[in-house]
């Protein structure tokens, strides 16, 4: 399965083909943008984009919410860029990078010339300042500080060369340098308070700069004059085309739909599945891409007696009909999970042969473990019901409701509580849950270590003893060679399924819906929005 993103519309015909391919790849029927074949990108204009939530912060080094990232990503350039088509890490601000054999030391050679928006050069010392500032932010920079965990030292070799050393193997770090979180800010920004940086008081290195930001209202970004270090994955390398991007916070779904239809906004990612049909005409286009990383998963708490039994976990995994979920409840672009990893993640391999819907096998496994059907159809053992509870906030809430019905057919009772994010986090925080539910966006297979490893940041399966899977997850984190790493990642992904660690459901994806005059708006490798190539056709 290959994922493409719309290249610049100078090649509009190719763009249209690419879009169609994407649509085919995801099994969808998205209309392609209706640009005329001779259309050349034009400089100028303002694009109005609606976001659904405002996380009260747009500092790239602090944010984690997708809507905030849609703003923050445009303000910074990164050391590297990840190719959205194959996940390869390519040069960006660093013309060259070297990793030592055990993935503990990373040396970057910087381009001579690029500068921060305040005129300061992007040099080795400023890279050091950036990463130290992220460490200093600590918990306020959740993503960044996890990428920089085990950081030992940063050596400024010369103006253009910087070496970053870790105390543990850290293969994911290379991909991390391509993300907005480790995007570079002018050294002056490191001295600005955390709260003021959230409000947009920072100086970036990217194609756009913050003109204004008002929490709950929105932000305006303006084109950075003199920017000419666009990444090789983009369709051009000099200044962005748009004069400004205006982001408006529109929490109400019906308002976003109506505003896009009536031309009061130009594009959004926040159209409800039910409303998607309204935008199928020639006046609009939509583009979908799976979010790379961990798919929507039910994480079984293996510290509980019932779920410590591999048979029980495998039975639940086999008792879920993923196809039925995506075909009845979700949009045409949503596809069933075929691995713990989403298909847009580098090193992804389709495991649908070991991840089958097989209710008979599920029933056999439960019988084998001594769970026999009770009077009410729910299985029992020693007077105890095979009953579990999960608290979740993710929408559409019907997904787990259907899972609940499906599991009932194999005699498993799944109790659901749909709640606010705050409630869900409180319910999961003490680790007493049966199942937690969620996904995690990251364009690197190391995301599996984050969520499944016994020593991972979240250890969502609450295991206490390291097992074979943990060895594999640690091993892949230390391999730089792509072929070698692929082998280990495949082994790990397969063991997560066959060992019943992972109970994947479906892939989260992001859909851009835009008016036909919007051109070149697409996704970066992590399925976050990239406005650099975007332009407005009049």
């Amino acid at each position: 399965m290959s994922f493409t993103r719309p290249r610049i519309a100078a090649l509009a015909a190719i763009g249209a083909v690419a879009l169609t391919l994407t649509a085919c790849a995801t099994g969808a029927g998205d209309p392609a943008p209706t640009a005329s074949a001779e259309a050349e990108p034009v400089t100028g204009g303002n694009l109005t984009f609606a976001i659904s939530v405002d996380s009260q912060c747009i500092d790239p080094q602090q944010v984690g919410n997708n809507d905030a990232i849609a703003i923050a990503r445009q303000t910074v350039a990164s050391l590297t860029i990840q190719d959205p088509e194959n996940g390869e890490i390519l040069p960006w601000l660093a013309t060259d990078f070297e990793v030592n054999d055990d993935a503990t030391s990373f040396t970057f050679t910087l381009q001579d010339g690029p500068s921060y928006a305040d005129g300061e050069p992007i040099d080795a010392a400023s890279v050091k300042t950036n990463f130290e500032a992220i460490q200093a932010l600590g918990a306020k920079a959740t993503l960044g500080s996890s990428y920089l965990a085990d950081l030992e030292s940063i050596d400024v070799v010369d103006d253009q060369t910087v070496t970053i050393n870790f105390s543990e193997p850290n293969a994911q770090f290379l991909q991390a340098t391509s993300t907005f979180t480790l995007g570079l800010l002018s050294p002056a920004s490191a001295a600005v308070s955390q709260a003021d940086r959230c409000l947009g008081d920072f100086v970036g290195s990217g194609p756009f700069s913050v003109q204004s930001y008002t929490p709950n209202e929105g932000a305006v970004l303006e084109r950075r004059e003199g920017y000419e270090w666009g990444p090789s994955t983009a369709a051009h390398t000099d200044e962005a085309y748009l004069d400004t991007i205006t982001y408006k916070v529109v929490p109400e779904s019906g308002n976003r739909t109506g505003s896009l239809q009536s031309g009061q906004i130009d594009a959004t990612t926040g159209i409800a599945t039910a409303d998607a049909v309204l935008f199928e005409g020639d006046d609009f286009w939509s583009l979908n891409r799976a979010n790379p990383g961990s798919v929507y998963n039910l994480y079984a708490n293996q510290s509980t007696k019932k779920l410590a039994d591999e048979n029980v976990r495998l039975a639940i995994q086999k008792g879920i009909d993923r196809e039925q979920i995506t075909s009845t409840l979700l949009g045409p672009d949503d596809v069933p999970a075929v691995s713990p990893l989403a298909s847009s993640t580098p090193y992804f391999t389709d495991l649908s042969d070991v991840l089958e819907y097989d209710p008979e096998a599920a029933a056999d496994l439960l019988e084998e473990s001594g769970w026999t059907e009770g009077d009410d159809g729910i299985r029992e053992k020693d007077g105890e019901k095979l009953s579990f509870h999960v608290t979740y906030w993710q929408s559409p809430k019907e997904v787990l409701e259907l899972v609940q019905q499906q599991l009932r057919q194999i005699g498993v009772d799944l109790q659901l509580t749909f709640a606010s994010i705050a409630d869900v986090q409180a319910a999961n925080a003490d680790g007493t849950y049966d199942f937690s539910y969620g996904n995690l966006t990251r364009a690197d297979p190391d995301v599996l270590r984050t969520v499944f490893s016994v020593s991972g940041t979240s250890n969502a399966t609450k295991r206490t003893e390291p097992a074979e899977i943990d060895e594999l997850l640690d091993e892949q984190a230390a391999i730089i060679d792509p072929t070698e790493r692929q082998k280990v990642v495949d082994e790990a992904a397969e063991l997560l399924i066959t060992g019943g660690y992972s109970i994947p459901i479906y892939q989260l994806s992001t859909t851009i819906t835009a008016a036909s005059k919007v051109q070149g708006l697409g996704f970066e490798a992590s399925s976050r929005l990239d406005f650099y190539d975007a332009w407005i056709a009049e």
Partner: protein
Amino acid sequence: MWGRYIARRIGQGVIVLWAAYTISFLILYLLPGDAATLFAGGGDQEAIDPELVAQLRSELGLDRPLYEQYLVALGKALTGDFGVSTQTGRPASDLLLESLPPTIALTAFAFVLSVVFGIVLALAASLARAQWLRNLLSSLPPLGVSIPVFWIGLLLLQAFSFRIRLFPSMGNEGFESLVLPAITIAIPSGAFIAQLLSRSLRSTLAQPYVEIVRAKGASERRVQLGHAFRNAAIPSLTMVGVLIGGLLSGAVVTETVFSRLGIGRLVVTAVNNRDVPVVQTVVVFAALVFVVANLVVDLVYPLIDRRITLARTAFVAA
């Protein structure tokens, strides 16, 4: 007598403010989830590092005992320091002051609209000659009071913004952006006023002095507008406090539907983020508006109607 009365009312107001502060603190504390876990996780970041959460919790002071958190916060609040927003790191009072102007503009406009709308509807229902028209007009206020605000907002958006594109669907820019949100709030509030006025008009018109006025040969219009309405309007004045409460709660929903800035949006975001200092600042502010509005009404009341003495209102209020 005025001095003692006012001092007493202010004392009562202070108790109301303290109760609002304390109750909101307890409610937020009882809700599951705290600012630290929400900050460290939430949205797409499900990998919550317990160490980071613990660190944040101690930075925010959430690891201290409940009574200590409460007393420290209350002590500071007494000096006018409502603390720092756990979500943004900015003073909660700054956030309130920034959000205030758009909400004042919205609620003030909505207030004017609802008063006009309420009076016109009540009088029209009372003056209408045809029985069917009177029935129709009288059935509007109960309807207006019961329609959910967000539904009115979406309906108005659909008609006047998405279809005929007369007004913007979002934002705070210019008078145009104020029209639909203000009408949205004014419909239930106006209906509320109309309900009160109609009831009061009916009872006033049933009083003997109205017959005397009629007997003197005054026209029906003169009877209603010149005599009954003036007297009927006075009881409605006491409900201004309730009305302001309605306007403020209407603003919470309306600001979200129309993507407007204001204290409604501020408080929704703050509750979702368990941002205790910000919620408490807004709650205390809203309580203050309530207290002041009721005090002003009680003080103005005897000036309008000489028959009402301060002693009596003071007694009732106590």
